[in-house]
Every structure is written in C-alpha cells, then in structure tokens.
C-alpha cells in the first residue's frame, strides 16, 4: 500500500476519532429569543427519550433497562433543577398517566418530536457557528405543540433525547485488536481510538404557542449525566415581562438551593471503582483522564489501583511497565497519605526504571493533591447552588493556588462559556487575581486563561472589565492579552453579516 494512501487513512481516522479545535458552539437560539421569553414562565418537561445499548461482539445487543431508567430520572431531575435555576416555573404533569389514557395525546407528543427532528435539519445545517452566531434561527415545530401546552397549562415544552452505548468487554477487546492492526497497517502513522462507551443528548425549549424552537443544545461525551449538565448549562434565563431582566434576579429571588452534590459524587466514585476493578487497561486509562481534577481521594476508588500495582510492580514486562506507570500516577492523584508507603516501595524496589521514575513523580503529586483535593470538593456535603461539576469549577476559580485557578478557567472555557453564574465567578476571580502581585508565570497564565474564558463567552457584559485590565494592568503580558481578548469578544458579539 502506498504511503500516501496510508497517510490518507490515518488522516481520515484522526478526523473521525478526534475533535475539532475550533471554538464553535452547539447552542442554537431563536433570532427573537427575548420577546418569546417574555411570554414564557411555565415550562413542562416532555418525557425524556432515553436509549442505551450494550454492544456485543455477537451482535446480540441489549438495552440496558436499569441504566436507561436511572438516566431518564437523572436527566429529568437535572432539567427540573436547571429550569428552576434559570428562573422558570416547572409544571409537574403526569405524562405516563395521560399517555396511558389517551393514545391521541401520545401521538401528539410523537408529532412534536418528529417535527423537532425536521426543525433540527435547519438548526444544524451548514457550517459550524461561533458563540456570537448562535442567535440566528427561526425554526418551528408548528402548532402541534399547542395540544401539549394547552393540556399541561405550560408556556413552553422542554424536549430531551439521550442515546448512549456501552461496549461489552469482548467488544472492547476486539477494538483493542483492531487498533493494533490499524497501527501496524499504517506503520505507526495512525491510531484508532475506540470509546468504550459514549452518549449524546439533545435538549430543546419549544414555545408552547407558536411552536418556535427557542433554544436547543446538543452534546456528546461520556455515558453519564455530565453531557446533560453541559447541554443544559446554556439554557437561556427567563425574562421578566415587567423589566426584561432575568425573572429570578428581578424578583430578588435567591438561586434555588440544590441537594448536596455528594450524591452525584458517590455515583462517580462507584463508576471509578468499577473501572479500576476491571481487566481492561483502556477502561482504566479513560478513568484516569477524568479523575485528574476530580478532587477524589476515596479509597473505594484507589484501593483496586494499589492492589494491582502491588501485585505486578516487582518485575513487570516492558508492555506492563507502561500500564503500571499510569496506575502509579493515578495513585498520586488520590492525595491520600494511605498510599505513600506503597508508592515508596514501588519506587524503591521495582526493577523497571520507568515505573520507578513515575512512582517518584506520583509521590510529588500525592503531596500536591493532598492540598488540592479538599479545595476542589469543598462544600460537597452542603446544599448549595451548584451541581457537582459546577461546584468543582467554582472551587477551582475561587482557589488561592493559581494552578487551580488556571484549571478552573480552562473548565469554563471548555464547558461553561454560556453558564452565566460561573462566568460571573470567573469575572470575580479575574478582578481579584489580576490585582494581586503577580510574581510567577503560573499566576500570569491563570489570569490570561480567565480573560480567555470571558472573551469566548461572546457576552459583551464582560467587555468593560477586559478593557479596564488592558488599560491598567502593570503586567505587559496581561495587558496585551486583555487587549487581544477585548477585540476577540467584540468580534464574537458583533451581529453576523
């Protein structure tokens, strides 16, 4: 096979398996959103459509009914909370009963969903959009939605659809084999990355009278509720007809207090434990990537890692050394002194040089994360306004350590560019940190990341702060970045030609 062909295959694979680095948005909003939201107060959540499949090598795929059920409940609860946080009144309506009693009503809901599928073609057609271009749509599901809104006495209907998969262990093994084969085929030019699980969610707020799609977002990612969190984070806030400002703010209403995020944390811990207790390194590697800034120190997660390390560290094969090195680093993420002796033993006694080296690094990480993890999960046991991932981001932004602030800013940049409350926290952090004595590069970089996050939000509310820093900062790098980001923000917020 010619080298050019191989490179084409590799590039195609990279395109298929990778993701775009463009700063585009998955959010779409109605071009006349504000005037619609003036008429929206009560929102009903249509029954979420959830399908999750266990993919098997044999093709005997199964629906994972228990996971579908828990996911359905999970995203319903998230949506309910997020609607309330955004200032809407959530209409509680027993759809199951109504559908069981009236199949015509069930058909109406199906028609609304089908009509949204058609509207989606318009909403998702064409080129990718920047955040500033998201409000340029005039799609409608038609008046079929009237029957739903009239029956539920709601002003708008929230549609949710979630589709996910998880591969069986046999399927994962086959993927690993195909990755190896592909790497050989492309002489190392290509790497196929197979996700062991994945999901996609789509949420849409539909005007219950006109059928106009007011807002929609679609996210893909891991098989859990995090994509729902990300999708719902861009939900527009309700607008009070009296003052055309967010209703909750206008009324002086506090942000609703949520249940402690510790419930979500326990689910995460359980998932991590399952991942680290399995046989496949690919699964563990994925878990490690997500664990890095989780703040988790729970032995339930790390004990299986320690056990595996202790079992094989003495004289591992070359291939196994790489895996164990990652496990040693994972142990460092725990910040839990319980694992210090193990890491010291491995660093001292293993015959594998690389494993010894990473175990020493893990000991350093252990100390860092001993300080960082409690900060990252501060308040997790308390009721508050944040869900778990938001709470972590909030804590990171409000931390004293610039390393953590930088991570928090990156989180906002990657996931919360339209989350007004976290953007406000980002602004607060920026104003606090840019005024401090900046005596190292990490501090400067953290401030620059905070500005980058605000600039990419496309929200001109943050423009004055950037201009002020550009004019007043004594740090040349920060002043220069502030000018650049102010220009970027103005460009993003400019109306589309």
């Amino acid at each position: 096979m010619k080298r050019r062909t191989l490179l084409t295959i590799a590039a195609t694979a990279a395109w298929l398996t990778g993701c775009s680095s463009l700063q585009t948005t998955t959010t779409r909003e109605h071009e006349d959103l504000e005037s619609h939201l003036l008429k929206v107060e009560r929102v009903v959540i249509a029954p979420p459509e959830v399908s999750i499949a266990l993919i098997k090598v044999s093709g005997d795929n199964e629906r994972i009914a228990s996971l579908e059920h828990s996911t359905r409940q999970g995203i319903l609860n998230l949506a309910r909370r997020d609607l309330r946080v955004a200032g809407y009144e959530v209409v509680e309506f027993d759809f199951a009963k109504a559908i069981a009693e009236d199949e015509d009503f069930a058909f109406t809901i199906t028609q609304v969903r089908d009509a949204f599928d058609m509207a989606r073609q318009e909403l998702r057609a064409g080129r990718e959009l920047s955040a500033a271009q998201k409000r340029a749509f005039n799609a409608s599901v038609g008046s079929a939605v009237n029957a739903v809104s009239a029956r539920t006495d709601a002003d708008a209907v929230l549609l949710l659809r979630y589709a996910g998969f998880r591969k069986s262990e046999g399927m994962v093994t086959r993927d690993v084999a195909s990755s190896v084969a592909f790497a050989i085929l492309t002489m190392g030019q290509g790497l196929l990355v197979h996700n062991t699980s994945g999901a996609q969610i789509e949420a849409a707020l539909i005007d219950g009278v006109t059928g106009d799609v007011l807002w929609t977002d679609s996210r893909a990612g891991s098989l859990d509720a995090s994509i729902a969190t990300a999708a719902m984070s861009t939900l527009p806030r309700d607008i009070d007809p009296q003052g055309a400002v967010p209703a909750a703010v206008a009324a002086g209403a506090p942000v609703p207090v949520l249940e402690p995020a510790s419930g979500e944390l326990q689910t995460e811990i359980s998932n991590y434990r399952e991942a680290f207790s399995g046989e496949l390194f690919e699964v563990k590697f994925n878990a490690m990537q997500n664990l890095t800034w989780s703040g988790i120190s729970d032995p339930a997660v790390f004990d299986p890692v320690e056990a595996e390390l202790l079992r094989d560290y003495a004289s591992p094969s070359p291939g196994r050394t790489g895996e164990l090195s990652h496990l040693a680093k994972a142990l460092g993420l725990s910040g839990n002194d319980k694992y210090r002796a193990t890491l010291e033993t491995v660093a001292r006694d293993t015959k594998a040089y690389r494993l010894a080296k990473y175990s020493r690094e893990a000991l350093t990480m252990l100390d860092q994360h001993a300080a960082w993890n409690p900060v990252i999960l501060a308040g997790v046991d308390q009721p508050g306004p944040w869900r778990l991932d938001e709470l972590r981001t909030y804590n990171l932004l409000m931390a004293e350590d610039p390393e953590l602030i930088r991570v928090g800013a990156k989180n906002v940049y990657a996931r919360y560019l339209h989350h007004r409350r976290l953007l406000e926290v980002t602004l607060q952090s920026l104003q606090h940190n840019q005024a401090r004595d900046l005596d190292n590069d990490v501090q400067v970089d953290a401030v620059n990341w905070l500005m980058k996050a605000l600039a990419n939000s496309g929200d001109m509310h943050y423009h004055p702060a950037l201009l002020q820093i550009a004019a007043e900062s004594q740090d040349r790098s920060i002043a220069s970045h502030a000018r650049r980001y102010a220009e970027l923000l103005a460009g993003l917020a400019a109306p589309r030609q």
Partner: protein
Amino acid sequence: MPSPCPMPIAALVAALLAIGACSAPAPATPDDRGSLPADDGPRLRIEAAADALHQTLRRRGLLLRDPAVNAEVGSVVSRLTAAASADNPPIRPYVLKNPMVNAMALPNGNIYLNSGLIATLENEAQLAAIIAHEINHVWSEDSLQEHARAKDTITAANIADILLLGLANVGAQATLAGYSREQEEAADLAGLRLFAAAGYEVSEFANAYALMAELPEYAMDKGSIFSSHPEQWRRVAYLRAAVDRDYAGAVGQGTVNSSAYAPLRSQLLELSIQLRLQARLPAMALDTLERGEPLLSNPALGAYYRGEASRAMADHPREAARERSLIAHGRVSDRYEAALSAQVPAHYDEAIASYRQALALDPDLLVAHRGLGLALHARGRDAEARPHLSRYLDQPAPPDDARYIQRLLNNLSGTTP
C-alpha cells in the same frame, strides 16, 4: 437520500430489534427453514423484543384506534385464517399512522399495516393479498431465521446509529426488519394459497404488487417490501405465472369488494395527506391527493388540502426544496431553494385561491377559514385575515391550536380585537 418518512417506524423497529434482539445458538441458514433449533430461548427473546416494540408503538400513539378501520382489517384477517391450523400462532393486525407504503410482520403474531398502504390499495382483495403475505412470515418464523443469519452484521451499524442519535438504522433495518428474497418469495406463494383458499379473486394478488411497483420510490419506507422496483416486477411476473399454473379456473370467481373498501380507503387517504403535510412534505401530500381525490368524503377537502400544500411550500421553502430534491433522488440543491423562495408570494396567493374555492364549496369548513386567515396574514392582509381566524375559533370545542390562533389574532395589525 434521507427518508421521507415523518415517523421512521421501520427504523424504530430495526433499532429496537437490533438492541433488544437475542442470540441463537447457531446461525441458521436458508436450508434450516422448518427445522429451527429446539431451544426456545431465542424464540422467546425475539418475541419479547417484538412485544417491547409493540409497547413502544402504543406509547407513541402510532397505532390507529379507529373501530371501523380495525374491524375491516380484522375481518380480512379472520377470513384468511379461518381454516388455519390451531398450531399456528394467532394473528393480531394493527394499522399504523404512517403515510408511507409498507407493512411488516413480527414473530409475536403482530402484523402492522401502514395507513398509507391501505389508502393506496384499491379493494379488499388487494389488502388481503398483503396480509396473507405477512401472515406467512409469522407462521414460517422468518424473523427468527433472518435474525440468526443477520445478527453478526448489526453491531457496527448500531454504534454508528446510536452516535447519530440514531434511529435512522437503515443498515440494520435492511437485515432485521426485512427478509431474504427466498423468504419473500416463499411468503408470496404460501400467501397466494391462503388467499385463494379464503375465496378472494386470485388475479388481485399480483395486482396488489403491480400497484406497488408503479408507485414512486419516495412513497415507501426504505427497506419496505415494495421498495425495489425490479424486484417488484419480477414478483408480479412469478405470481401471475403461479395463478395461470395453479388457479386458472378460479380467475374472475372470487371476492374483490371495491365498494365496501372505498370508505376505509377514503378515511386513510385523508389521514395520509394530513401526515404528509405535518411532515412538511407538501408535494407528496399533493401526489397522494391526486391519486385519491374523488374518494374524499367532502369535495371541498380537495381544494382545502391544495391550499394547505401551497401554504406549506410558502411557509417552509427550504423544506419544500429538500422534498423536491428527495423526489428527484438528488442532493439538496440551492437551485431548488432559490426557486421556491422566489415563489413564496405566488404560493401564498395560490393557497388563498384554493381556500376560497374550498369555502365556496363548503362555507362551514372551519379549517379552510384557518388556512385562509393564515395565508392572508402572511401576505400582510390582516384586516381580511381577522374574520376568518375568528370564525375558525368560533366552534363548540376549542381546537388544539386555539392558543396559537388566539395569540395571532391578538397581534394582528390594523384593527383591535
């Protein structure tokens, strides 16, 4: 080419079967027909998947619950199965609210006939021909055999579909919701025997398939048993040959029943037009109308639906362009969209003329008042629109979209409500 089906039921079927289907201990081959493994596990699991699919269809409100329609279809099934062996599983027919021309059989004995299919067929005998074919799929356990053969092919298709928020499971549909050519032919010939034994006019069996073969492909689901035209004509040929060979003396002797079938066809024709309009497929709605306008219960309805189609083209020129492309087997073309966008005022004017024609035939056709009001409003003629929209709301029970029309009335320019 995207599916023109507003409710991808066949895709849903495929997705559910693909996800919910089960394993067989060893793949069956075409030679296995009639000698399936004794293990009932696969059978029970695939039947459970079929039951789950039925519940999904029910929960989505896709089953037509019209007593007259169901009684008519049920009577055809009863006639066909009257002499059946007690060992055969009972057949339960359902009509789906779907304008596409398709039918399907599931291994639990459920047979689903799309409303679009029934609206296309010309008489009871042709309906019986299709049902007889589907009954034989159930009785010969084709689903189980086809699933066992196809199961290794579905995994990749499934992951791709799921990642695409996937119910557009065309690949899996082709293998799971469909049957092999051998199975189709066997079901045809066994169906013909059943059909003839029930006393239906034997020539109508092939006529039903000839009718399908003459339909445009966009009228059918992908994977529909009627969607391959060369295959359809081949089928018509061997069915006619079978009639000539085995039933020559019976030609012209059996039941056709066109007149009793007409009301059923009329009702489902109208439903098909409505479903196509809701799916923003106005040209296909017009095509359906043209094939059956004389059957409509009210002559004014033809003009009304023409108005609805014209208004839909004007309201949604991009979707109308997509539909044109679909019909022409092409990619969505800017040329279509530009042309249709330029015709928006003309389409509204056509709609206004059609609605007025409908109201001239039947002044009490309230939906025509609605359409006329909306079209006039779209042309900026709010003062003319107001009385028609008000008239539409002036009925004993408020229509489903009363809120929409009332808000529009409140916002009409020119005069106060």
